[in-house]
């Protein structure tokens, strides 16, 4: 069974060590906030100047002056702090975040990332903080469904959509696999049990390499 979106988020969350500073991109990565491992202090940063983002507020806690990058109301963890936008992006661009977990339209085997525009002529383009995050976090990982709704591969030899940043993605979490981006290309570290390697390759444009210690990708029901 492919992982659900929440399970992809769960799998990515397992790799977050105690004490890491992380920015969660809009969309699929935002779900990571709901499945953080217990017993670890993980500090979520939001582009709009919140360091230490906590869970959604209950009715009594609701303050519309406290939102995340997706403009959803949030809370602040004990130990959290506020900075202005310029300082927030100093954190982001200056390699102060250990990790940016981002969504993607496509990732290329050299680590190129395309996640800001599909050039749909019906809509104006929007970039938000994606290019700053991709350029400035210590490490960039992507959460993405392995293929598009119509089955086209999102893990490609080269990105077809306009790039967000060149050669930045180091790890990809999909509904089918966990894949590292190495200088030799995509290396499959984990894959779900009910698909074989050739079938995974068929859903991927770029060549996949099998990690010597490849493991089964599984997640609890959620």
């Amino acid at each position: 069974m492919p992982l659900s979106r929440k399970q992809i988020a769960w799998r990515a969350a397992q790799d977050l060590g105690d004490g890491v500073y992380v920015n969660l991109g809009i969309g699929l990565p935002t779900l990571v906030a709901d499945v953080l491992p217990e017993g670890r202090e993980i500090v979520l940063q939001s582009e709009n100047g919140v360091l230490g983002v906590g869970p959604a507020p209950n009715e009594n806690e609701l303050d519309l002056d406290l939102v995340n990058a997706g403009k959803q109301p949030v809370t602040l963890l004990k130990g959290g702090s506020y900075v202005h936008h310029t300082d927030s992006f100093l954190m982001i661009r200056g390699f102060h975040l250990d990790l940016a977990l981002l969504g993607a339209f496509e990732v290329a085997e050299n680590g190129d990332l395309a996640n800001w525009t599909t050039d749909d002529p019906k809509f104006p383009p929007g970039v938000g903080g994606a290019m700053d995050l991709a350029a400035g976090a210590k490490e960039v990982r992507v959460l993405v469904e392995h293929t598009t709704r119509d089955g086209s591969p999102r893990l490609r030899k080269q990105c077809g959509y306009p790039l967000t940043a060149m050669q930045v993605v180091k790890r990809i979490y999909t509904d089918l696999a966990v894949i590292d981006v190495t200088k030799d290309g995509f290396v499959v570290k984990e894959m779900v049990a009910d698909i074989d390697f050739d079938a995974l390759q068929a859903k991927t444009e770029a060549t996949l390499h099998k990690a010597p210690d490849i493991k089964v990708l599984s997640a609890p029901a959620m």
Partner: protein
Amino acid sequence: MIDKRVRSLAEAVDGIKDGSVVLAAGFGGAGSPEALYGALLEQGAKDLTIVNNNAGTGRIGLAGLMDAGRVRKIICSYPRSSGSVVFEELYRANKIELELVPQGILSERMRCAGAGLGGFWSPTGVGTRLADGKEEREIDGRHYVLEKPLKGDVALLKADRGDRWGNLTYNKSARNFNPTMAQAASLSIVQVRRFVELGEIDPEHIITPGIFIDRMVEVPV
């Protein structure tokens, strides 16, 4: 005596000229000076360039200014928020110009103007379409593009508390673009939830020192 307080919204936005570059603070509703946006609509200035993270939602505030045909150009990072209907209509009809800037660069370019610098070398967007036409250079093995200062004629801001010298505090993430925009405009106008006596804000807690503020109006929302 220094007293930057004015008594009405009309007085606050008085004299804003046609063709102004307006730094418009806020991120979503947080820190967004909606009363000043409304007052600017009343005031009538047109041919404006608006700098904001987004491009307005609904038909009031920034969207109201656009809907009334007052905005020639938007400089923003993300004009696609749900509810940006006015902007999308104008954009499709080629009735508004869009300059798309990565969010951190938008903020850094305003800081650059506020700090009196001529530009900076940025790693953001290198190798992407948003670097098209920008000078590129390799420095110590990394590639950068040249970004220019972005200065405002006017900044419209929202703060929590303010004293007559213009010292400000903000509430939580409503801080966002406000402190930087206050530094980057020739005329900085702020709507403040609550005026307080001089000295009531602990000097250690002041986020925007009064030197960056020109006019303040009390709007208790």
